[in-house]
């Protein structure tokens, strides 16, 4: 499958701090790609390297067939960026900024602009200095999606939007995908990523820790099981793939690696199952698993 972005072994240092440490990411054409990681993991740095705003120290990058540093201007005609913290000129109106950004990017579709303004309920006559964070974000979103580009780089675009606007945003991204465009969505909002993304890359301390479709990631992780039995469940801890067992009388809850579920269920039936509840891991749990390790290691080193 053709790729819109492929990053291999990307390194970026800020002084003595290594922000990106052999980071890899592949974004296919016409997919919505979720980019997850906590603050400071390197999401914005990656996007800024892709935009040629930062110069990489090592690594290979192919962005829409070009080099993000060398071919910056030509590539920027084909993509649109919504920054994490949208900053605008306080004395210009929202409408003026949308037109300006569209023009500098290479052109704007007036009908699309009107439609987007209406969808996001944005008043284009107000000065940017008077906009709230959410409204500044809307200006950047409208400017981006009113442009006819192949790729959208969106850095936490929904962090200031209210729930109705988040729905409008999801609709917009879904449309863009249907029209054959590619979207990279860096986000903290698991619900957005679960609703929109085909594939996901999880970054931690500048390294890729997980990449794939949501199903693939789920398969690699654990399912939460809560069971009530007639007799106390014994020997559960001895089974492979079982974690975090907690008992409260005849109630037992534990996590199990997805490929060990069958064996565990066979074990459970010996004790007379009265009720059983199982939940596949949510994206949040997937994410917490990668970062939760860090927390528990720090808290109880003797159990690690």
């Amino acid at each position, binding site marked *: 499958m053709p790729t819109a972005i492929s990053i291999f072994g990307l390194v970026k240092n800020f002084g003595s701090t290594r922000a990106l440490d052999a980071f890899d990411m592949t974004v296919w054409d016409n997919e919505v790609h979720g980019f997850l990681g906590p603050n400071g993991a390197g999401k*914005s740095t990656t996007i800024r390297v892709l935009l040629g705003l930062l110069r990489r120290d090592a690594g290979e990058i192919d962005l829409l067939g070009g080099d993000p540093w060398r071919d910056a*201007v030509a590539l*920027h005609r084909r993509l649109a960026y919504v920054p994490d913290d949208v900053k605008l000129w306080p004395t*210009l109106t929202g*409408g003026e900024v949308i*037109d300006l*950004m569209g023009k*500098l990017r290479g052109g704007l579709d007036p009908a699309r602009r009107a439609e987007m303004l209406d969808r996001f309920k944005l008043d284009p006559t107000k*000065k940017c200095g008077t906009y709230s964070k959410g409204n500044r974000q809307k200006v950047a979103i409208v400017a981006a999606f009113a442009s006819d580009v192949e790729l959208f780089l969106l850095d936490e675009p929904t962090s200031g939007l209210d729930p109705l606007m988040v729905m409008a945003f999801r609709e917009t991204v879904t449309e863009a995908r249907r029209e054959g465009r590619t979207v990279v969505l860096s986000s903290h909002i698991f619900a957005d990523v679960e609703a929109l993304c085909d594939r996901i890359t999880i970054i931690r301390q500048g390294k890729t820790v997980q990449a794939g479709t949501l199903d693939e990631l789920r398969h690699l992780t654990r399912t939460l099981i809560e069971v009530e039995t007639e007799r106390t469940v014994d020997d559960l801890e001895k089974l492979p793939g079982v974690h975090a067992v907690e008992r409260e009388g005849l109630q037992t809850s534990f996590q199990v690696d997805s490929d060990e579920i069958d064996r565990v269920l066979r074990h459970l039936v010996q004790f007379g199952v009265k009720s059983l509840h199982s939940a596949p891991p949510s994206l949040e749990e997937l994410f917490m698993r990668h970062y939760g390790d860090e927390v528990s290691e720090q808290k109880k080193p003797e159990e690690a």
Partner: protein
Amino acid sequence: MSQAFTGTLALTWVAISRDRIQLPVWILAVAAFMVAVVSIWNGDLSQEELVSVAQFYGVQPAVRMFGLASGATLGAYIMSRGFVVFAVLVAVMSILFVVRHTRQDEDTGRAELIGSASVGRHANLASAFIVVVGANVLLAVLIGLILTFKGLPVASSFAAGAAFAGIGIFFAGLAGLAAQLAGTSRGATGLALAGLGLAFVVAGIGNILGRVDEAGVRVVSAWPAWLSPVGWGQQMRAFEEDHWSLLGLFAFSFLVLAAGAVFLETRRDTGKGLLPERRGPSAASPGLLSPVGLVWRLQRGVFLSWAVGVGLFGIVVGAVSADLEAMLDELEGFDEIFERIGGTDVIVDAAFVTFMGILALVITIYAVQGLLRMRAEESDGPAESVMATAVSRRQWVTSYILNIALGTAALFLIVGLTVGVTAGIVMGDVAAWAADLVVAGLVHIPAAWVVAGAVVLAFGLFPRRTALLAWMVFVIAAVTGPFIGAMLDLPEWIQNISPFIHVPAVPGESVTAAPIVGLLGMAVLLTGAGLLAFRRRDIDVTSV
């Protein structure tokens, strides 16, 4: 009411620790400069020499702009000669500090974060005032000690320090007020600096219009001097009469300004100025839709107010030129003084050279401030969004450089025209005067561009230090320049550092190509190097 100041003490400590480098650097630099200056003007002057330098400041109306003659003593001589320079340094230190800790915090959103904690509405402003007053008092003591150690009378030395601190504190109060009025920190700084410029000019006019005593060593200033805090500092007459009571005037006016700032702060929202927000067009006009159009849109308000300001100043200078000629005609035997300062013995020409030189420094502030907008847009503005579009870095920077370079040139043209035409109307022969003075204005353009080029280089190489380096370059160029440098009697090799020293002294001298070509070459070199450095470096955004 007292609740509105809750947390002031805690924020005072925060302000001190945030400014633990910048403020001490300012204080020590001013103190070191004082040591240097006093050492150069050593105490070996004979009584006759002291009389003659006092007469230099007393008898020449144009020179009175820069210093007030207060008798033939070494201390009075130092005060006449150095007062304005130190007053401006102390005032600028105070203005930048107060704006940095009030309005700038709002621009960056830091104030919102602090404001949501349990601190009062005025705590931030109050803590900024506390620190800046403390800094000025410290500086006053340092100056007092330095002058005392140089063997000057103790009480008068501290009176001199107190006069500078009074001016610093006054402008801290004014900056606090400006921070409430303006919509941004740049606007607040500009407003307060404009106040300083006005205070300098008004005090100077008061001194020019004053009367000199029979010995020619003491000037009694006319009433305008009393309208200006710079004038009050001079009227303290350290080393002559030591009018300590004038400190009360400083204290009172500071309290009025501070109370005004507090009052205005209760009447506005965080992050907003007092001027009402208006709606604007829902779509951009075609003129805005390019990098050059954008910069012009952002800069045009600033440019137009500068154009009006320098134009008015030019008209005033041109209008008084006839009086100046009449006054100077009565004076004999001072030709050599003018020759030294203006490079010509034609008195009116020399006066114009002096005025043009001062205006050149003022207009260079426009260039420096305008170019610093690039850094503000980069660190805390939409520059990264612009450079994420099909605008190259070179295009982005050159649109600023072009705008500022042409704007600076236009200001010089305006000054030359306004001075020349009004002088021509007053003295006759408009065409000749206008032609002469337009040339006198335009010859300064390359020197201003050299300073601008240095700012671009600083921006390219050291993004996080751009503002500090830019103002350092400006202060060095100004202090070593033809007027201040000559007045401070700095060694020639130091004076040669300033690009302004190399400007032909038109209309006294004729224009020569070599210095102009040299300065232009230097400006192009610095700008080009800055552009290259910028194209190779990371875009540096303050937020992570």
